[in-house]
Protein backbone atom coordinates (compact mmCIF):
# COMPACT_ATOMS: atom_id res chain seq x y z
CA UNK A 1 0.00 0.00 0.00
CA UNK A 2 1.45 3.27 -1.06
CA UNK A 3 1.66 5.89 1.62
CA UNK A 4 1.81 8.67 -0.92
CA UNK A 5 -1.53 10.42 -0.47
CA UNK A 6 -0.74 13.59 -2.35
CA UNK A 7 -3.54 14.99 -4.46
CA UNK A 8 -1.87 14.33 -7.79
CA UNK A 9 -1.24 10.75 -6.83
CA UNK A 10 -4.81 10.25 -5.72
CA UNK A 11 -6.24 11.72 -8.90
CA UNK A 12 -3.97 9.71 -11.16
CA UNK A 13 -4.89 6.51 -9.36
CA UNK A 14 -8.63 7.18 -9.30
CA UNK A 15 -11.09 5.14 -11.30
CA UNK A 16 -12.10 6.26 -14.80
CA UNK A 17 -15.52 7.51 -13.75
CA UNK A 18 -14.10 9.60 -10.95
CA UNK A 19 -11.46 10.96 -13.30
CA UNK A 20 -14.11 11.87 -15.82
CA UNK A 21 -16.16 13.58 -13.19
CA UNK A 22 -13.13 15.49 -12.00
CA UNK A 23 -12.31 16.50 -15.57
CA UNK A 24 -15.85 17.69 -16.14
CA UNK A 25 -15.80 19.68 -12.97
CA UNK A 26 -12.46 21.29 -13.79
CA UNK A 27 -13.83 22.23 -17.18
CA UNK A 28 -16.95 23.69 -15.57
CA UNK A 29 -14.80 25.61 -13.15
CA UNK A 30 -12.63 27.06 -15.90
CA UNK A 31 -15.74 27.98 -17.84
CA UNK A 32 -17.43 29.63 -14.91
CA UNK A 33 -14.31 31.59 -14.06
CA UNK A 34 -14.00 32.72 -17.68
CA UNK A 35 -17.55 33.96 -17.48
CA UNK A 36 -16.91 35.63 -14.19
CA UNK A 37 -14.00 37.59 -15.64
CA UNK A 38 -15.93 38.33 -18.83
CA UNK A 39 -19.07 39.52 -17.02
CA UNK A 40 -16.99 41.58 -14.67
CA UNK A 41 -15.44 43.41 -17.58
CA UNK A 42 -18.71 43.81 -19.50
CA UNK A 43 -20.74 45.02 -16.53
CA UNK A 44 -18.10 47.41 -15.37
CA UNK A 45 -17.83 48.85 -18.85
CA UNK A 46 -21.61 49.15 -19.15
CA UNK A 47 -21.83 50.95 -15.82
CA UNK A 48 -19.10 53.37 -16.77
CA UNK A 49 -20.68 53.97 -20.20
CA UNK A 50 -24.02 54.70 -18.54
CA UNK A 51 -22.35 57.22 -16.24
CA UNK A 52 -20.63 58.91 -19.18
CA UNK A 53 -23.73 59.04 -21.27
CA UNK A 54 -25.89 60.40 -18.48
CA UNK A 55 -23.35 63.17 -17.97
CA UNK A 56 -23.45 64.09 -21.63
CA UNK A 57 -27.20 63.78 -21.86
CA UNK A 58 -27.93 66.01 -18.87
CA UNK A 59 -25.22 68.58 -19.69
CA UNK A 60 -27.95 70.56 -21.43
CA UNK A 61 -26.77 70.39 -25.04
CA UNK A 62 -29.01 70.01 -28.04
CA UNK A 63 -30.34 66.47 -28.41
CA UNK A 64 -29.98 66.52 -32.21
CA UNK A 65 -26.36 67.55 -31.76
CA UNK A 66 -25.80 64.71 -29.31
CA UNK A 67 -27.38 62.27 -31.74
CA UNK A 68 -25.19 63.42 -34.59
CA UNK A 69 -22.13 63.15 -32.40
CA UNK A 70 -23.02 59.60 -31.45
CA UNK A 71 -23.56 58.67 -35.12
CA UNK A 72 -20.16 60.05 -35.92
CA UNK A 73 -18.46 58.14 -33.12
CA UNK A 74 -19.38 54.86 -34.77
CA UNK A 75 -21.99 52.26 -34.33
CA UNK A 76 -20.45 50.11 -31.64
CA UNK A 77 -22.24 52.11 -29.00
CA UNK A 78 -24.10 50.07 -26.47
CA UNK A 79 -26.14 50.59 -23.36
CA UNK A 80 -27.83 53.89 -22.84
CA UNK A 81 -26.36 55.41 -25.98
CA UNK A 82 -27.90 52.68 -28.10
CA UNK A 83 -31.27 53.21 -26.46
CA UNK A 84 -31.03 56.94 -27.02
CA UNK A 85 -30.13 56.49 -30.65
CA UNK A 86 -32.96 54.06 -31.29
CA UNK A 87 -35.49 56.35 -29.66
CA UNK A 88 -34.27 59.53 -31.30
CA UNK A 89 -33.98 57.93 -34.73
CA UNK A 90 -37.53 56.67 -34.58
CA UNK A 91 -38.76 60.05 -33.35
CA UNK A 92 -37.00 61.92 -36.14
CA UNK A 93 -38.17 59.46 -38.75
CA UNK A 94 -41.80 59.69 -37.69
CA UNK A 95 -41.59 63.45 -37.63
CA UNK A 96 -40.13 63.72 -41.10
CA UNK A 97 -42.89 61.46 -42.35
CA UNK A 98 -45.37 64.06 -41.28
CA UNK A 99 -46.89 62.55 -38.16
CA UNK A 100 -47.85 65.43 -35.96
CA UNK A 101 -49.75 63.77 -33.16
CA UNK A 102 -47.34 64.10 -30.21
CA UNK A 103 -48.81 61.03 -28.52
CA UNK A 104 -48.15 58.84 -31.54
CA UNK A 105 -44.62 60.23 -31.93
CA UNK A 106 -43.70 59.55 -28.35
CA UNK A 107 -45.26 56.11 -28.36
CA UNK A 108 -43.33 55.09 -31.43
CA UNK A 109 -40.07 56.33 -29.97
CA UNK A 110 -40.81 54.61 -26.69
CA UNK A 111 -41.53 51.32 -28.40
CA UNK A 112 -38.28 51.35 -30.31
CA UNK A 113 -36.44 52.29 -27.11
CA UNK A 114 -38.03 49.33 -25.31
CA UNK A 115 -36.77 47.00 -28.01
CA UNK A 116 -33.30 48.44 -27.74
CA UNK A 117 -33.40 48.21 -23.96
CA UNK A 118 -34.40 44.56 -24.05
CA UNK A 119 -31.56 43.83 -26.43
CA UNK A 120 -29.09 45.58 -24.17
CA UNK A 121 -30.24 43.82 -21.03
CA UNK A 122 -30.16 40.53 -22.85
CA UNK A 123 -26.58 41.21 -23.85
CA UNK A 124 -25.69 41.90 -20.22
CA UNK A 125 -27.45 38.83 -18.95
CA UNK A 126 -25.76 36.62 -21.48
CA UNK A 127 -24.06 33.60 -19.83
CA UNK A 128 -25.37 34.40 -16.40
CA UNK A 129 -27.65 31.37 -16.63
CA UNK A 130 -24.61 29.21 -17.29
CA UNK A 131 -23.09 30.48 -14.06
CA UNK A 132 -26.26 29.55 -12.23
CA UNK A 133 -26.22 26.10 -13.78
CA UNK A 134 -22.64 25.49 -12.79
CA UNK A 135 -23.34 26.77 -9.31
CA UNK A 136 -26.31 24.53 -8.75
CA UNK A 137 -25.24 21.34 -10.47
CA UNK A 138 -21.54 20.93 -9.90
CA UNK A 139 -21.92 19.94 -6.23
CA UNK A 140 -24.19 17.13 -7.38
CA UNK A 141 -21.77 16.06 -10.07
CA UNK A 142 -18.99 16.04 -7.49
CA UNK A 143 -21.17 14.09 -5.13
CA UNK A 144 -21.83 11.57 -7.85
CA UNK A 145 -18.09 11.08 -8.31
CA UNK A 146 -17.67 10.66 -4.58
CA UNK A 147 -20.46 8.14 -4.28
CA UNK A 148 -19.06 6.18 -7.18
CA UNK A 149 -15.56 6.19 -5.70
CA UNK A 150 -16.78 5.13 -2.28
CA UNK A 151 -18.88 2.40 -3.83
CA UNK A 152 -15.84 1.03 -5.59
CA UNK A 153 -13.77 1.30 -2.48
CA UNK A 154 -16.31 -0.66 -0.46
CA UNK A 155 -16.68 -3.26 -3.16
CA UNK A 156 -12.93 -3.81 -3.00
CA UNK A 157 -13.24 -3.98 0.76
CA UNK A 158 -15.78 -6.76 0.51
CA UNK A 159 -13.28 -9.00 -1.26
CA UNK A 160 -10.69 -9.07 1.50
CA UNK A 161 -10.99 -10.93 4.76
CA UNK A 162 -9.39 -8.44 7.04
CA UNK A 163 -10.42 -4.85 6.47
CA UNK A 164 -7.96 -2.20 7.54
CA UNK A 165 -8.22 1.53 7.52
CA UNK A 166 -5.28 1.67 5.18
CA UNK A 167 -7.28 -0.30 2.64
CA UNK A 168 -10.30 2.01 2.58
CA UNK A 169 -8.82 5.39 3.32
CA UNK A 170 -7.13 6.10 -0.04
CA UNK A 171 -10.28 5.13 -1.94
CA UNK A 172 -12.43 7.42 0.13
CA UNK A 173 -9.90 10.22 -0.04
CA UNK A 174 -9.76 9.98 -3.80
CA UNK A 175 -13.54 9.93 -3.95
CA UNK A 176 -13.86 12.95 -1.74
CA UNK A 177 -11.65 14.95 -4.08
CA UNK A 178 -14.54 14.95 -6.54
CA UNK A 179 -16.83 16.64 -4.02
CA UNK A 180 -14.12 19.12 -3.13
CA UNK A 181 -13.67 20.12 -6.75
CA UNK A 182 -17.44 20.30 -7.22
CA UNK A 183 -17.73 22.70 -4.33
CA UNK A 184 -14.72 24.60 -5.57
CA UNK A 185 -16.47 25.12 -8.89
CA UNK A 186 -19.88 25.84 -7.40
CA UNK A 187 -19.12 28.37 -4.70
CA UNK A 188 -17.59 31.12 -6.88
CA UNK A 189 -20.21 30.51 -9.54
CA UNK A 190 -23.07 31.01 -7.09
CA UNK A 191 -21.49 34.09 -5.57
CA UNK A 192 -20.79 35.58 -8.98
CA UNK A 193 -24.27 34.76 -10.22
CA UNK A 194 -25.93 36.53 -7.33
CA UNK A 195 -23.65 39.52 -7.57
CA UNK A 196 -23.89 39.95 -11.32
CA UNK A 197 -27.61 39.36 -11.62
CA UNK A 198 -28.04 42.06 -9.00
CA UNK A 199 -25.82 44.38 -11.01
CA UNK A 200 -27.73 43.65 -14.22
CA UNK A 201 -30.97 44.34 -12.41
CA UNK A 202 -29.69 47.73 -11.31
CA UNK A 203 -28.49 48.61 -14.79
CA UNK A 204 -31.86 47.56 -16.12
CA UNK A 205 -33.55 49.94 -13.71
CA UNK A 206 -31.27 52.76 -14.79
CA UNK A 207 -32.07 52.10 -18.45
CA UNK A 208 -35.77 52.00 -17.64
CA UNK A 209 -35.59 55.33 -15.86
CA UNK A 210 -33.69 56.78 -18.76
CA UNK A 211 -36.32 55.59 -21.24
CA UNK A 212 -39.06 57.25 -19.25
CA UNK A 213 -37.14 60.49 -18.83
CA UNK A 214 -36.23 60.63 -22.49
CA UNK A 215 -39.84 59.94 -23.45
CA UNK A 216 -41.05 62.88 -21.40
CA UNK A 217 -38.44 65.12 -23.04
CA UNK A 218 -39.50 63.93 -26.48
CA UNK A 219 -43.12 64.56 -25.58
CA UNK A 220 -42.27 68.11 -24.60
CA UNK A 221 -40.45 68.65 -27.90
CA UNK A 222 -43.25 67.09 -29.93
CA UNK A 223 -45.82 69.29 -28.24
CA UNK A 224 -43.90 72.50 -28.81
Amino acid at each position, binding site marked *: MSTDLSI*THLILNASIVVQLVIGLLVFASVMSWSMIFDRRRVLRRAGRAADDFENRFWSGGDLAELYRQLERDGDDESGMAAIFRAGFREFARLRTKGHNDPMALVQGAQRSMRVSLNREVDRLENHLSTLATVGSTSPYVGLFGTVWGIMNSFMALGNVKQATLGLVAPGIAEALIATAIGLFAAIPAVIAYNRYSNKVERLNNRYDDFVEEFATILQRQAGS
Partner: protein
Amino acid sequence: MLAMLKRSPVAVFLAVALHLLIVFFLIFGMEWELFPQQEKPPVEVVQAHAVDMDKLRQVEAEEKAKARKMKEQQAKKQKRAEEKKRLAALEKKRKADAVAKRKVDAKKKAEVEAKRKAEVKRKAAAKRKAEEKRKADAIAKKKAEEKRKADAKRQAELAAKREAAARAERERALQDQLAAEQNARETDRYVAVIRQQIERKWLRPAQTGEQLSCEVQVRLIPGGDVVPGGVSIVKSSGNAAFDRSVEAAVYKAAPLQVPSGGLFESFRNLRLNFKPSK
Protein backbone atom coordinates in the same frame (compact mmCIF):
# COMPACT_ATOMS: atom_id res chain seq x y z
CA MET B 1 -16.63 27.70 -24.48
CA LEU B 2 -15.20 28.21 -27.94
CA ALA B 3 -17.49 31.18 -28.55
CA MET B 4 -16.34 32.52 -25.25
CA LEU B 5 -12.73 32.08 -26.28
CA LYS B 6 -13.38 34.00 -29.44
CA ARG B 7 -15.29 36.78 -27.80
CA SER B 8 -13.16 37.44 -24.77
CA PRO B 9 -9.91 35.52 -24.85
CA VAL B 10 -8.58 37.54 -21.96
CA ALA B 11 -11.20 36.19 -19.59
CA VAL B 12 -10.57 32.59 -20.62
CA PHE B 13 -6.86 33.07 -20.29
CA LEU B 14 -7.29 34.55 -16.82
CA ALA B 15 -9.48 31.64 -15.73
CA VAL B 16 -7.06 29.03 -17.01
CA ALA B 17 -4.16 30.83 -15.35
CA LEU B 18 -6.05 30.90 -12.06
CA HIS B 19 -6.69 27.19 -12.17
CA LEU B 20 -3.12 26.39 -13.09
CA LEU B 21 -1.99 28.49 -10.16
CA ILE B 22 -4.29 26.63 -7.80
CA VAL B 23 -3.13 23.26 -9.09
CA PHE B 24 0.46 24.33 -8.70
CA PHE B 25 -0.09 25.32 -5.10
CA LEU B 26 -2.01 22.15 -4.38
CA ILE B 27 0.77 19.95 -5.65
CA PHE B 28 3.67 21.83 -4.19
CA GLY B 29 1.83 22.70 -1.04
CA MET B 30 1.28 19.01 -0.45
CA GLU B 31 4.86 18.02 -1.13
CA TRP B 32 6.47 20.92 0.66
CA GLU B 33 7.45 18.64 3.50
CA LEU B 34 9.42 16.36 1.23
CA PHE B 35 12.25 18.72 0.33
CA PRO B 36 14.00 19.08 3.69
CA GLN B 37 13.90 15.34 4.14
CA GLN B 38 15.70 14.78 0.87
CA GLU B 39 18.44 17.21 1.78
CA LYS B 40 19.27 15.44 5.01
CA PRO B 41 22.29 13.09 4.96
CA PRO B 42 21.25 9.46 4.97
CA VAL B 43 20.81 8.05 8.42
CA GLU B 44 23.44 5.53 9.59
CA VAL B 45 22.29 2.09 8.74
CA VAL B 46 22.69 -0.75 11.16
CA GLN B 47 24.74 -3.54 9.59
CA ALA B 48 22.87 -6.78 9.57
CA HIS B 49 23.51 -10.22 8.14
CA ALA B 50 21.01 -12.77 7.16
CA VAL B 51 21.45 -15.56 9.70
CA ASP B 52 20.37 -19.16 9.44
CA MET B 53 18.40 -19.65 12.60
CA ASP B 54 18.76 -23.46 12.63
CA LYS B 55 22.56 -23.37 12.60
CA LEU B 56 22.60 -20.75 15.26
CA ARG B 57 20.39 -22.82 17.45
CA GLN B 58 22.65 -25.91 16.99
CA VAL B 59 25.75 -24.02 18.00
CA GLU B 60 23.98 -22.67 20.99
CA ALA B 61 22.89 -26.16 22.07
CA GLU B 62 26.47 -27.46 21.82
CA GLU B 63 27.78 -24.68 23.95
CA LYS B 64 25.13 -25.31 26.50
CA ALA B 65 26.00 -29.03 26.68
CA LYS B 66 29.68 -28.23 27.26
CA ALA B 67 28.85 -25.85 30.03
CA ARG B 68 26.61 -28.42 31.64
CA LYS B 69 29.39 -31.06 31.63
CA MET B 70 31.86 -28.73 33.26
CA LYS B 71 29.39 -27.84 35.89
CA GLU B 72 28.74 -31.49 36.68
CA GLN B 73 32.46 -32.20 37.18
CA GLN B 74 32.81 -29.30 39.50
CA ALA B 75 29.80 -30.42 41.48
CA LYS B 76 31.33 -33.92 41.92
CA LYS B 77 34.58 -32.52 43.28
CA GLN B 78 32.73 -30.37 45.72
CA LYS B 79 30.66 -33.31 46.93
CA ARG B 80 33.76 -35.36 47.75
CA ALA B 81 35.23 -32.56 49.82
CA GLU B 82 32.00 -32.13 51.67
CA GLU B 83 31.84 -35.85 52.50
CA LYS B 84 35.26 -35.68 54.18
CA LYS B 85 34.26 -32.67 56.19
CA ARG B 86 31.06 -34.35 57.30
CA LEU B 87 32.91 -37.44 58.63
CA ALA B 88 35.25 -35.31 60.70
CA ALA B 89 32.36 -33.39 62.12
CA LEU B 90 30.58 -36.62 63.11
CA GLU B 91 33.58 -37.87 65.10
CA LYS B 92 33.78 -34.62 66.98
CA LYS B 93 30.11 -34.71 67.73
CA ARG B 94 30.21 -38.19 69.23
CA LYS B 95 32.87 -37.11 71.74
CA ALA B 96 30.93 -34.03 72.66
CA ASP B 97 27.77 -36.10 73.17
CA ALA B 98 29.42 -38.35 75.73
CA VAL B 99 30.50 -35.39 77.81
CA ALA B 100 27.05 -33.87 77.55
CA LYS B 101 25.38 -37.10 78.73
CA ARG B 102 27.30 -37.15 81.90
CA LYS B 103 26.34 -33.63 82.64
CA VAL B 104 22.68 -34.33 81.98
CA ASP B 105 22.58 -37.21 84.46
CA ALA B 106 23.80 -35.03 87.24
CA LYS B 107 21.26 -32.41 86.41
CA LYS B 108 18.38 -34.92 86.50
CA LYS B 109 19.19 -35.97 90.03
CA ALA B 110 19.17 -32.44 91.23
CA GLU B 111 15.84 -31.82 89.54
CA VAL B 112 14.15 -34.77 91.27
CA GLU B 113 15.27 -33.47 94.66
CA ALA B 114 13.95 -30.02 93.87
CA LYS B 115 10.61 -31.40 92.71
CA ARG B 116 10.01 -33.21 95.99
CA LYS B 117 10.64 -30.04 97.97
CA ALA B 118 8.30 -28.08 95.75
CA GLU B 119 5.52 -30.68 96.22
CA VAL B 120 5.59 -30.23 99.96
CA LYS B 121 5.47 -26.50 99.68
CA ARG B 122 2.57 -26.61 97.24
CA LYS B 123 0.41 -28.73 99.52
CA ALA B 124 0.77 -26.34 102.37
CA ALA B 125 -0.12 -23.41 100.18
CA ALA B 126 -3.26 -25.14 98.90
CA LYS B 127 -4.53 -25.74 102.42
CA ARG B 128 -4.11 -22.15 103.32
CA LYS B 129 -5.84 -21.00 100.19
CA ALA B 130 -8.92 -23.17 100.77
CA GLU B 131 -9.31 -21.71 104.24
CA GLU B 132 -9.17 -18.19 102.91
CA LYS B 133 -11.69 -18.94 100.19
CA ARG B 134 -14.25 -20.24 102.60
CA LYS B 135 -14.05 -17.05 104.58
CA ALA B 136 -14.42 -14.83 101.51
CA ASP B 137 -17.45 -16.77 100.33
CA ALA B 138 -19.26 -16.17 103.56
CA ILE B 139 -18.64 -12.43 103.33
CA ALA B 140 -19.83 -12.28 99.74
CA LYS B 141 -23.04 -14.11 100.59
CA LYS B 142 -23.83 -11.63 103.26
CA LYS B 143 -23.22 -8.74 100.91
CA ALA B 144 -25.47 -10.16 98.21
CA GLU B 145 -28.28 -10.59 100.68
CA GLU B 146 -28.04 -6.97 101.66
CA LYS B 147 -28.02 -5.87 98.11
CA ARG B 148 -31.10 -7.87 97.22
CA LYS B 149 -33.00 -6.28 100.03
CA ALA B 150 -32.02 -2.78 98.94
CA ASP B 151 -33.07 -3.52 95.38
CA ALA B 152 -36.48 -4.72 96.38
CA LYS B 153 -37.01 -1.61 98.40
CA ARG B 154 -36.00 0.64 95.57
CA GLN B 155 -38.22 -1.17 93.13
CA ALA B 156 -41.21 -0.76 95.35
CA GLU B 157 -40.53 2.93 95.56
CA LEU B 158 -40.27 3.21 91.77
CA ALA B 159 -43.50 1.38 91.25
CA ALA B 160 -45.28 3.68 93.64
CA LYS B 161 -43.91 6.68 91.82
CA ARG B 162 -44.96 5.35 88.46
CA GLU B 163 -48.41 4.70 89.72
CA ALA B 164 -48.70 8.23 90.96
CA ALA B 165 -47.54 9.60 87.61
CA ALA B 166 -50.04 7.46 85.74
CA ARG B 167 -52.80 8.65 87.99
CA ALA B 168 -51.80 12.28 87.40
CA GLU B 169 -51.70 11.62 83.68
CA ARG B 170 -55.15 10.11 83.73
CA GLU B 171 -56.47 13.04 85.66
CA ARG B 172 -54.92 15.46 83.26
CA ALA B 173 -56.36 13.61 80.28
CA LEU B 174 -59.72 13.69 81.90
CA GLN B 175 -59.39 17.37 82.45
CA ASP B 176 -58.34 17.88 78.85
CA GLN B 177 -61.31 15.93 77.70
CA LEU B 178 -63.52 17.99 79.86
CA ALA B 179 -62.00 21.17 78.46
CA ALA B 180 -62.43 19.89 74.93
CA GLU B 181 -66.00 19.05 75.63
CA GLN B 182 -66.46 22.46 77.05
CA ASN B 183 -64.89 23.98 73.93
CA ALA B 184 -67.07 21.87 71.70
CA ARG B 185 -70.09 22.96 73.59
CA GLU B 186 -69.02 26.57 73.28
CA THR B 187 -68.33 26.13 69.59
CA ASP B 188 -71.67 24.52 69.05
CA ARG B 189 -73.29 27.39 70.81
CA TYR B 190 -71.52 29.90 68.61
CA VAL B 191 -72.32 27.92 65.49
CA ALA B 192 -75.97 27.91 66.44
CA VAL B 193 -75.85 31.67 66.98
CA ILE B 194 -74.18 32.21 63.62
CA ARG B 195 -76.67 29.97 61.90
CA GLN B 196 -79.47 31.98 63.44
CA GLN B 197 -77.83 35.22 62.38
CA ILE B 198 -77.56 34.03 58.81
CA GLU B 199 -81.00 32.55 58.67
CA ARG B 200 -82.48 35.79 59.85
CA LYS B 201 -81.07 37.49 56.74
CA TRP B 202 -81.89 34.59 54.46
CA LEU B 203 -84.49 35.26 51.79
CA ARG B 204 -85.50 31.81 50.70
CA PRO B 205 -86.39 31.67 47.07
CA ALA B 206 -89.94 30.68 46.38
CA GLN B 207 -90.93 27.20 45.37
CA THR B 208 -87.98 25.41 46.82
CA GLY B 209 -88.62 21.91 47.95
CA GLU B 210 -88.05 20.73 51.46
CA GLN B 211 -85.39 18.27 50.43
CA LEU B 212 -82.88 20.87 49.20
CA SER B 213 -79.76 21.34 51.24
CA CYS B 214 -76.52 23.10 50.53
CA GLU B 215 -73.25 23.31 52.35
CA VAL B 216 -71.25 26.52 52.31
CA GLN B 217 -67.74 27.18 53.47
CA VAL B 218 -67.19 30.62 54.98
CA ARG B 219 -63.78 32.10 55.61
CA LEU B 220 -63.78 34.46 58.53
CA ILE B 221 -61.30 36.83 60.09
CA PRO B 222 -61.09 37.55 63.82
CA GLY B 223 -63.94 39.85 64.69
CA GLY B 224 -66.41 37.92 62.57
CA ASP B 225 -66.08 39.67 59.23
CA VAL B 226 -66.39 37.51 56.14
CA VAL B 227 -63.35 37.50 53.86
CA PRO B 228 -64.39 39.09 50.53
CA GLY B 229 -65.06 36.22 48.15
CA GLY B 230 -64.60 33.83 51.04
CA VAL B 231 -68.00 32.25 50.73
CA SER B 232 -68.07 29.19 48.54
CA ILE B 233 -70.57 26.49 47.94
CA VAL B 234 -69.00 23.19 48.91
CA LYS B 235 -71.93 20.98 48.15
CA SER B 236 -74.49 22.49 45.85
CA SER B 237 -78.14 21.87 46.37
CA GLY B 238 -78.63 21.53 42.64
CA ASN B 239 -80.68 24.70 42.59
CA ALA B 240 -78.57 27.67 41.58
CA ALA B 241 -81.00 30.26 42.93
CA PHE B 242 -81.04 28.52 46.28
CA ASP B 243 -77.24 28.44 46.45
CA ARG B 244 -77.06 32.09 45.57
CA SER B 245 -79.56 33.04 48.23
CA VAL B 246 -77.53 31.28 50.88
CA GLU B 247 -74.39 33.00 49.74
CA ALA B 248 -76.09 36.41 49.79
CA ALA B 249 -77.42 35.72 53.26
CA VAL B 250 -73.94 34.97 54.59
CA TYR B 251 -72.62 38.24 53.22
CA LYS B 252 -75.55 40.16 54.56
CA ALA B 253 -75.25 38.65 58.04
CA ALA B 254 -71.63 39.75 58.45
CA PRO B 255 -70.14 40.51 60.88
CA LEU B 256 -70.93 37.18 62.45
CA GLN B 257 -70.67 36.63 66.14
CA VAL B 258 -67.51 34.64 66.75
CA PRO B 259 -65.63 33.88 69.96
CA SER B 260 -62.31 35.58 70.54
CA GLY B 261 -59.07 33.94 71.55
CA GLY B 262 -58.06 30.35 70.95
CA LEU B 263 -61.60 29.27 70.33
CA PHE B 264 -61.72 31.32 67.15
CA GLU B 265 -59.30 29.00 65.35
CA SER B 266 -62.07 26.52 64.54
CA PHE B 267 -64.07 29.34 62.97
CA ARG B 268 -61.54 30.42 60.38
CA ASN B 269 -63.00 27.97 57.88
CA LEU B 270 -66.54 27.43 58.88
CA ARG B 271 -68.78 24.89 57.19
CA LEU B 272 -72.49 25.36 57.48
CA ASN B 273 -75.35 23.30 56.17
CA PHE B 274 -78.59 25.00 55.22
CA LYS B 275 -81.99 23.53 54.68
CA PRO B 276 -85.11 25.51 53.90
CA SER B 277 -87.22 23.54 56.32
CA LYS B 278 -86.26 25.69 59.25
